C-alpha cells in the first residue's frame, strides 16, 4: 500500500485551490531523456540570495569568509567586477533569467512580474527543448517567474524542498497556479502580517510553531534558518538536496537552483556562530539621506549584523565546499558548467542594513560570479566590469546557441565574449513605481570603466530632480568621495547616456 506523506496530506486537505493544484502537480512533468546523440554539457546555476561580493574573502574581504569559494575558484573563471542589475530579488533575478535590464523586463516591484510580452524571452525557452530544464528557488519571488515560464520548464521543485518545516505556500508552486500562489502566499498565509485565512492561517502558524519548537536540530540551538515564506531549513539539508539534484540530472540539463542563504535572517549554524567575534569594525561611513529614519541603524547594530552575515556566508561557503567535493568525486565537474552567482548584495553601512533601500552602492549590487567549465583546471580572473544580463547569452553561447536579438547582455569576456572595459553597465531600483508608466522616482547607476555614476531621481529629500554622485572605483572602491564636480567631462557623458536610457524608457509611456 502506498503511504501518504505529511506533505501530501497537507496538500489534499488544505483547500479547494490547494487540492486542485495538487492534482495538477500529480499529473505534472518529470524529466525525460532528450536526444542521446547530443553531447551538450550540463549547466548548473547556483544563485545564493543576497550574497554581496564585498563580504567574500574571494574578493579580498578582510574576514576569511569563503575559503571554499577560493578553492572552487582554482578551477573557474572569476569575475571580479560583476554587477546585478537591481538591489533586490525581483529585478536581479529577472535580469539573470531574461538577459534584460529592469526597465525592459519591468519586474521592478516587490514580488512583481516580468512584462507579459517579455516573459517568453527567458533562458529556459532560449535554450530550448534540447535541454532538460529544472528550476528551484527557496525565494518565492523567483518562483513567481517560474510560474511565468512554466511552459518552458520541465520541472519546478517546490520552494519547500530540502526543508525541515514546510509551508502551505509550497502547495501551488510549480503547478502553474499563479493565482493560488498569490492567494496563498500574499493573503491567506501571509507571513509577518495578518494571515488572510483566519482559521487555516492560524492553524498553519500553530503547526509550524509546534514543529519548530519540537525540532531536534543541535546545529541550531537558538533559531533555525528560514525563508520569508516561511520555510524552516538546515543548510546541510539544502546542500544535501543540491548534491542529490545535481547527481540526478539527465544530460544535457539546465538546472537553476536559487538558495535563500545568506539572505536574512542571518542564522549561522553552531559551527560558525561566533566565528568572527574578532573585534574588527570597518571604517564607519556617513549616514545617507535616503535611509528611512525609522530604519536607520547605529554603527554598532550594523557591525553586529555584519558579523552574523559574515558567519552565515562562511556557513554557506562550507556547504559549497561539500557540494564541490561531491561534484568532483562524482565526475560531474568534468561534464558540467557550474555557475555560482547572486541576485543582489547586502549592505551594512551608511545607516542602512539589508537591501530594502533605494541605494545602489557596490555592497548591494556587486555580486560574485564564478564559472567553472567542464574539466577546467586553473583559475582565470576577469577584471572587466560585467553584468547579470550577460549570464543568459553566455549560457546560450556555451551550449552552442546564438544570442537572441532581444537580449541586452553580451557573452562574458573570457568565455568567448568581447573584452570591452569601457562598456556601460546599468543598475536601477524603482520598487515604488508603476511598471507600465514613466518612472518618476527611482535610483539608477551606470558603471563604465573606472567610474560609477549614481542618479537619485525624483526623491523629495533632494531639491533637484537628479541628485548625481560620481565615484572612481579604482581609487575609491568604498564610494566615499563624490567626484562629480571634479570629473565633469566623464560625468556629463555618463549622465547623458544614462538619461538617454531613462528617457527612452519613459518615452514609450508618453501620451
Amino acid at each position, binding site marked *: 500500500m502506498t503511504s501518504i506523506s505529511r506533505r501530501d496530506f497537507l496538500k489534499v486537505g488544505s483547500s479547494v485551490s490547494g487540492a486542485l493544484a495538487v492534482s495538477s502537480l500529480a499529473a505534472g512533468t518529470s524529466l525525460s531523456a532528450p536526444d542521446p546523440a547530443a553531447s551538450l554539457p550540463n549547466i548548473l546555476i547556483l544563485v545564493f540570495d543576497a550574497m554581496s561580493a564585498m563580504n567574500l574573502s574571494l574578493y579580498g574581504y578582510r574576514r576569511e569568509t569563503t575559503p571554499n569559494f577560493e578553492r572552487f575558484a582554482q578551477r573557474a573563471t572569476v569575475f571580479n567586477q560583476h554587477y546585478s542589475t537591481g538591489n533586490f530579488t525581483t529585478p536581479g533575478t529577472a535580469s539573470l533569467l531574461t538577459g534584460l535590464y529592469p526597465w525592459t523586463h519591468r519586474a521592478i516591484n516587490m514580488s512583481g512580474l516580468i512584462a507579459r510580452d517579455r516573459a517568453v524571452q527567458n533562458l529556459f525557452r532560449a535554450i530550448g527543448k534540447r535541454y532538460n530544464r529544472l528550476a528551484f528557488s527557496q525565494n518565492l519571488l523567483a518562483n513567481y517567474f517560474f510560474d511565468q515560464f512554466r511552459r518552458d520548464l520541465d520541472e519546478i521543485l517546490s520552494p519547500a524542498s530540502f526543508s525541515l518545516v514546510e509551508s502551505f505556500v509550497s502547495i501551488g508552486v510549480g503547478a502553474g497556479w499563479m493565482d493560488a500562489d498569490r492567494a496563498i502566499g500574499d493573503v491567506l498565509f501571509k507571513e509577518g502580517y495578518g494571515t*488572510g485565512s483566519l482559521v487555516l492561517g492560524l492553524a498553519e502558524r500553530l503547526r509550524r510553531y509546534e514543529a519548530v*519548537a519540537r525540532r531536534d536540530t543541535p546545529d541550531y540551538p537558538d533559531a533555525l534558518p528560514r525563508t520569508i515564506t516561511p520555510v524552516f531549513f538546515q543548510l546541510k539539508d539544502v546542500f544535501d538536496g543540491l548534491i542529490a539534484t545535481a547527481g540526478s540530472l539527465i544530460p544535457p540539463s539546465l538546472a537553476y537552483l536559487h538558495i535563500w542563504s545568506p539572505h536574512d535572517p542571518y542564522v549561522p549554524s553552531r559551527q560558525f556562530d561566533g566565528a568572527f567575534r574578532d573585534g574588527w569594525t570597518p571604517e564607519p561611513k556617513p549616514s545617507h539621506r535616503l535611509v528611512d529614519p525609522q530604519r536607520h541603524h547605529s554603527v554598532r547594530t550594523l557591525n553586529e549584523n555584519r558579523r552574523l552575515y559574515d558567519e552565515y556566508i562562511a556557513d554557506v561557503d562550507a556547504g559549497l565546499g561539500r557540494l564541490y567535493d561531491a561534484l568532483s568525486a562524482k565526475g560531474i565537474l568534468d561534464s558540467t558548467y557550474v555557475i555560482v552567482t547572486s541576485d543582489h548584495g547586502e549592505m551594512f553601512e551608511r545607516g542602512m542594513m539589508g537591501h530594502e533601500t533605494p541605494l545602489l552602492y557596490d555592497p548591494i549590487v556587486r555580486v560574485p560570479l564564478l564559472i567553472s567549465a567542464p574539466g577546467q583546471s586553473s583559475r582565470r580572473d576577469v577584471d572587466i566590469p560585467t553584468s547579470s544580463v550577460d549570464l543568459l547569452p553566455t549560457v546560450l553561447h556555451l551550449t552552442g546557441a546564438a544570442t537572441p536579438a532581444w537580449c541586452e547582455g553580451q557573452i562574458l569576456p573570457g568565455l568567448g565574449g568581447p573584452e570591452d572595459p569601457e562598456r556601460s553597465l546599468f543598475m536601477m531600483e524603482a520598487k515604488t513605481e508603476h511598471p507600465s508608466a514613466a518612472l518618476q522616482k527611482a535610483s539608477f547607476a551606470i558603471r563604465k570603466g573606472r567610474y560609477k555614476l549614481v542618479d537619485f531621481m525624483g526623491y523629495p529629500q533632494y531639491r533637484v530632480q537628479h541628485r548625481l554622485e560620481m565615484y572612481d572605483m579604482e581609487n575609491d572602491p568604498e564610494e566615499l568621495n563624490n567626484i562629480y564636480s571634479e570629473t565633469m567631462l566623464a560625468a556629463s557623458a555618463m549622465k547623458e547616456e544614462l538619461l538617454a536610457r531613462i528617457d527612452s524608457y519613459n518615452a514609450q509611456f508618453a501620451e
Partner: protein
Amino acid sequence: MAISSRLPGRQQIIQVYAIIVLIIFSWTILWLFWKLPSWRIFLTAWEIVGVLAFSLSTALGESLVVLSALLILALSLPRAWFGEVFVARGASLAATALGTMMFLDDQLKHEMLYPELPLGVWLLALPLAAIVLIPYAAGRIAWFRRIVESFADRATIFLYIMLPLSGISMFVVLVRALALTLSS
C-alpha cells in the same frame, strides 16, 4: 430522537452563520485590500480576480467549518445549555473564538522569534475565559441576549452579499482550473 430535531431552527442557523461570515470574510477582505494596491500595478484585472476568487472560496470553506463546529456543539450539549439559546450563545461563541484567533494570529506573526516566542498560559487564559464567559452571559442576561440576537439578525444582510460573491468565486476558480488544464 432524530438528529434533525436536536438541530437549531433554520432561521437561527442563518443568523449565527451571518456572524461567522461577517467576521471571516471581513478579515480575508481586509488583508486582500491591504495587498490590492501593489497587485494593481503589476497584475492584470483577471489575475486579481483569480486571487480574490481563491481567497474568498477559502473563506467560504472556513465559515462552513466554524458553523459545523457550532452545530456539533448544539447536537452534543444539553439543549438548555446551547440549542435553546443557539443564536445568543452560538453567535457570541463564534465572535469570541474568532476574535481570539485574530489575537493569536497577531501574537504569532513574528516567527523570527521561534522558538523563543512565549506561547504561555497567560496568552491563552484571558481569551479562553472570554470564550466561556461571554457566551454564558449571552444566554443568561436578557438584555445582553437581546443585543446579540438583534445584531445577528441584522448581520444576515451580509449573507446576501458574501454568499453570491462566494458562488462567483467558486465559479471563477473552476473556470480558471479548467482553462489551465486545457491549456497544459
